[in-house]
C-alpha cells in the first residue's frame, strides 16, 4: 500500500514573534516494511537556516530558525510512504520469539552486545515515565505472571488497556502525570502508550515509545473528509533474538499496514512533532491537521490492474 501523508501545523502569534528556533520530528522512517518514497517540508515564512540530522534514537530531526518578524508559522510535511507489513516480519523467527518467557528475556538483557546496550536504556525511567507507582506495578503484574511469554503478557496488557481506558481527548495534556491517567483511566493515544510502557518497565522489561500516524476510515458509505486524521502513538517491546514488536493499545491491534512510523523514543518527550523557542509577547494558538490516505496514483494503478 502506498500512502499520501499531509501534516500541517499552524501557529498564530497574537503580537507576532521576532525570532524563533524550532525542531521537528515528523519525517517518516524507512525500514524493512516501510519506505519513504517522497518527502517535502514546507515552512512559511522561509527559514533563515535549516538543517537535518539523525538523533540518538535514529530519528530524522529538522532544525530551522526564522529570523524575521512573523505573525504566523506554518509547517507542512508531505510524504509518500510505502507500507508492506509482510516484508517487515520474518514469520518463523517471530513465532519462536513469541514464546520466549519473561524470565528468559531478562536473562538475555544482561548481555552487552551492541544491540542490547541500546535496548537496555528502555528499561530505565525516562523524562515522562520517571517513577514506579504501586498502582502501575500491580496493574502490570496481572498480566506479567511468572513463566509467561513476554509477547503474550504484552498482548494481554494491550487488550486490558484498550478495555479499561476510555479515549477522552482534552482530559490530559503532555504534563499530566501518569498516576492521574492511571487513576482516571482516561486519555488519548499518547497516554495509553506511556501507561503501557510504564507497566512493562515496572516489570523490568524494555519498552519504547513510537510516534506516527494511523489511517482512519470514514463511516461506511461516507466519503473521508480531508484533514481529519491525527498524529498517533503506540509502543514497542523488544523480543530477544527477534527485535522490536509494535502494539497499539488505542486500537487493540498489532500495527500493520495502516500505521506509519515516524520516530522512536523513551517517551513522548524525546519525539515531539514540533517544538521550539520563540521570542514573542502575548498568546499564541495552534492548529494541526493531518491527512493520510492511499495514494491516488496507487489506487488508479490498482484499479487499472484489476480491469485487465
Amino acid at each position, binding site marked *: 500500500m502506498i500512502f499520501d501523508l499531509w501534516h500541517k501545523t499552524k*501557529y498564530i502569534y497574537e503580537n507576532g*514573534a*521576532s*525570532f*524563533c*528556533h*524550532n*525542531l521537528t520530528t515528523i519525517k517518516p522512517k524507512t525500514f524493512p516494511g516501510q519506505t519513504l518514497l517522497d518527502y517535502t517540508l514546507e515552512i512559511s515564512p522561509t527559514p*533563515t*537556516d535549516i*538543517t537535518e*540530522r539523525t*538523533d*540518538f*534514537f535514529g530519528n530524522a530531526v529538522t*532544525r530551522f*530558525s526564522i*529570523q524575521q518578524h512573523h505573525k504566523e508559522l506554518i509547517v507542512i510535511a508531505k510524504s509518500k510512504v510505502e507500507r508492506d507489513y509482510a516484508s517487515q516480519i520474518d514469520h518463523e523467527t517471530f513465532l519462536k520469539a513469541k514464546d520466549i518467557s519473561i524470565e528468559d528475556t531478562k536473562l538475555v538483557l544482561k548481555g*552487552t*552486545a*551492541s544491540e542490547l*546496550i541500546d535496548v*537496555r*536504556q528502555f528499561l*530505565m*525511567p525516562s*523524562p*515522562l515515565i*520517571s517513577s*514506579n507507582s504501586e498502582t502501575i506495578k500491580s496493574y502490570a503484574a496481572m498480566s506479567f505472571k511468572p513463566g509467561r511469554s513476554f509477547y503474550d503478557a504484552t498482548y494481554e496488557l494491550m487488550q486490558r488497556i484498550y478495555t479499561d481506558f476510555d479515549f477522552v481527548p482534552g482530559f490530559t*495534556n*503532555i*504534563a499530566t502525570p501518569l498516576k492521574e491517567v492511571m487513576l482516571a483511566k482516561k486519555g488519548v493515544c499518547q497516554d495509553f502508550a506511556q501507561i503501557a510502557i510504564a507497566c512493562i518497565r515496572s516489570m523490568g522489561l524494555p519498552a519504547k515509545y513510537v510516534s506516527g500516524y494511523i489511517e482512519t476510515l470514514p463511516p461506511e458509505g461516507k466519503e473521508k473528509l480531508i484533514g481529519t486524521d491525527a498524529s498517533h502513538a503506540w509502543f514497542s517491546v523488544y523480543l530477544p533474538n527477534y527485535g522490536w514488536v509494535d502494539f497499539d493499545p488505542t486500537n487493540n491491534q498489532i500495527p500493520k499496514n495502516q500505521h506509519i512510523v515516524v520516530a522512536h523514543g523513551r517517551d513522548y*518527550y*524525546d519525539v*515531539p512533532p*514540533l*517544538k*521550539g*523557542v*520563540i*521570542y*514573542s*509577547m502575548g498568546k*499564541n494558538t*495552534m492548529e494541526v491537521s493531518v491527512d493520510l490516505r492511499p495514494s491516488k496514483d496507487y489506487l488508479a494503478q490498482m484499479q487499472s490492474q484489476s480491469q485487465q
Partner: protein
Amino acid sequence: MKTLTKTIFKNYFSASSKYDELLTSKMSIKDNWKVLSQNLLHIGTENLAIKQTELNWLLSENGVTYNVYNDPNGLNRPWDLNVVPYLIHQNEWTNVEKGIQQRAELLNLILKDLYGKRELLKNGILPPEVIYAHSGFLRACDQIKYKNAKQLSIYAADLARGPDGRMWVVNDRTQAPSGMGYALENRFSTSKVIPELFTNINVTQPTNFFNDFNQLLINSAATNAESPMVVILTPGPHNETYFEHSYLSSFLGYPLVKGNDLVVRHGKVWLKSLKGLKQVDVILRRIDDTFMDPLELREDSYLGVAGLLEAVRLQNVSIINPIGSGVLENPALNPFMKNICKYFLNEELILPQIASWWCGQEKERKHVLADLPSFVLKRIDRSNREHIYFCEFLDKAALEQLKKEILEFPFRFIAQEKIAFSTAPNFIKNQLEPRKILCRTFAIAKDDSYSVMPGGLVRVAPEREELFVSNQRGGTSKDFWIVTDTPQPNLQNYSWNKSNSSPSTVINDVPSHTAENLFWSGRYIGRALVTARYLRMVLNQMTNAQYNDRKSESESLKILFQSITKITSTFPGFIGENEAEALQNPLKEIKDIILDEHKIGSFAQSMQSFSNSYYALRNLWSRDMWRVFDGIQKHIKTLKNKEDYTVYTLTNFFDKIITRLIAFMALTEESIMVRQGLLLYFIGLQLEISAMNIEKFRAVLIVNYDEELEYEILESLLNSHESLNIYRYSYNSYLSIENVINLIILDKEYSRSLTYQMHRLKKDIDKLPSTHQNNELTVCQENMNLVISKLESFTISDMLSIHSESNMRDKLDQLLSDLSDLLHVTSMSISDTYFNHSQPQKQLVNRKISN
C-alpha cells in the same frame, strides 16, 4: 618546643584527631609544618587575631562574596578565609599532580567515548545503566565532534587525606567547576595582609597555571583563531559564585555576559553589542549543562542560548567545558575506574578513591543493604542538590525509606565507605583548632597533558565534628600552599595574553546589556544625587525655620515641601488629598521619601535600582568603588535601623551620602574607560540630572511670588543646585529671578546650567555608534537637535513674561514642559536603538516539563 603549651597550640595536641596534618602520631610537629609553626608563633596570638580581622576586613572591602541560597542574611555573604594556610610539600604534591593529570586524561577519554563509540559499554567495562541512569548523559550531545585535542578542558578534583596518609579523590567536577578565582583571591589576600607568614617558606605561585588557562581559552577557538572573541557566560548576580565570574572576567580580561546577551543566527553565536552583532568564538561557561540551550536541552531554561548546541555541532563555537560533560560528575564511575584506567591507559590509578559500591549491581547491592548503617549513600547525579545520606545517623524509619528507594531504582545509588579524613589547624577564638578539610585543585588541558594548579582552594568544616565540607552550607576557606626547597617567583596581578595583540574593546563592541546597565546606573545615581541634595536643602530650611517664625518662612517651606513631591514624582505626598496631614508632619513624609523603597520615585528606590544596575556591572568595578559603594549601603542600613528621626539625623545622613555619591561618581569616571561604555553612563547621568532640574525649575520658578517669598525660594533653589556661591561670584548682587534664570538655564559656560548640559548631552550622543550606513542622523541625534533649537529660540524676556490672569510664567513653563518631553523621547530612542530588546523567550508548545 616547650613554649608551645602556652601558645595558640595550647589545646591542639589534646584535641587533635586520629589523623592530623600538623602532628605526627607521636604528637610532634611534622617537618613540613615546622617553619610555618615558627612563623605563627613569631607573629603571636594577639597579632594573628588582628591579622584575621584585617583579612576579614580586606575581603569584605574587596567585595569578595559568596551567595548562599535561602540565606536569611541575603546575598553577598562575605567570603571567609582563615589566617592559617594549609600546606603540602612539593615532594608529595608531584605525585598528586601526576594523579590529577592521569584522572583528567581518563575522564577526558571517558567523555569522548560516551558521546562517541561507547566502547566502554560495548566491551563490558562499564555497565550502561551507570550512564543511562545519570541525568547528565545528554543524548542531544551524542556524536558531536570537537576540534580540541582534549574534550575535557577544565577538571576540578576534591581531595582529602585518607587514613593511609595519601591524598584521595573525593569528587570530580567537570561541568563548570568553581573555586579558581577564590583560590587566587585567597593567595592575594594572604600575601597582602600577612607577608610575614611566608618568611623562609618557598610557596609556588599559580601564575603559570593562569597563563595556561588563558592560553587554553584562546587556543580553543575553532573560528577567528587569529583574534578570537572569548566571553564568560554567567547565570547572573544571584548565582552563588557570581563574585568569581566577575573576578575572572576582570582578571582574564574577557566580557562577562548572560544568556540573553548572546544569540544564535546562521549557526553562529553572536554577542549583542552597541554597534550590532559580534561573533563569539569561545564561551567559558558557568552555567550547568542542561541550562545551556532551551531548544534542545532544558526547555524552561532562561539562562542559556537557544540553538547553541547546533552552533557547537557546526564547530562554530567552542564551549569550555563542552556541554554534556556533567555525565562525568558521577560517583558510580568510581568502582569501574580501575578497569577503565587499564583499558585506556594500561596503567594503575595513581590516586586512591573512596571505596564505592554501585547498587545497580546485584552483588554490591546485597552487600550494601546487608549493613546499610555503615555506609554513606549518595545519588549518582546531583539532581537533588548534594544529597548525601550519612546512614549511621538515620533512624529506623529513614533507613527503611532509603532502602525502599534503593530497591526501586538501585542504579541511582552509590554507597561509599565512611572515612575519617584528616584535620588541619584552623585559627578560631585565638586558638588553633583541628578541623576537617577538603582541598579542591584544578587542571587545565595543555598540549597532550594537563596543567595543574599548584595548590587550590581548601575548605574547612564549619563545626568541629562536622563530616561534611561545602561552601554551599557556609564554612571557611584556607590558602593552599605547595612549598618547595627552592625560591619561587612572585605572583602576577593579571593574566597577560601573549598571543593576542589586537586591541580588544572599542565602544562598538560593548555588550548591549553592559551599555544598558551603565546607562541606567548613570540615571539612577543622578536621580539619587539630585534628590539627596534637594532634600538636604529642605531639611536645612526646616532647621532655620525652627529659629525664626517669619510668615514668609512657613510659606516658602510649604512651597518647598510641595516641590519635593513634584520633583521626585512621589504623588500624592504633599499635594492633594492628604496635603494637610502631610504638611502637619512633614518629617514623616520626607522620611518615607528617603527610606521607603516601595515608594516609586523615593531616594531608597533610586538607590536600590542603582545597586541592581551597578551590581550587574561588577566586573568593571575598581576596589575603591566597592569600598565606597559598601559604605553607602551601610549608611542606609544604619539609618533604617534607627528608631527616631530628627531633622538633624536626616541632614547628617545626607551629608555623608552626598559626599560618598560624589566620590563614587568620580571613581566611576576615572576607572571605567569611555570605550568600555562609560559614555552611556554619562548620557544617562546627564539625562536624569537635566530632567530633574527641569522639574525643579517648573516647581519653583513658574509662579510669580511676592518679593520676600521669591527671595527665599530662589535662595533655596540655588542652594539645592549648589550654585549659590557661583551666583554671588557672577552677579555680586541681590537675588533676582532674571539673573537666576540667566545663570542656571541660559549660561553657556556654567556646567550646571541647563543650556550647557544640553550641549554636553548632544556631544556625547553624537559619539554613539551610528546605526545608519551613510551619515544620516540617528533618531537620538535628531531629538537632541530639537532640544537645542527649542532652548535657543527663547529669550530671557520670553521666559520672564508673566501671564496676567494666572500670574504665572507660562511661556517658561511651556518651554520646560516641552524640553521634559523631548528628553523623555530621547531616552526612549537611545534605549530602542542601542539596547537589547529581544522579546520574552517562550516555548512554542509549553510542555511544562522540567526535568
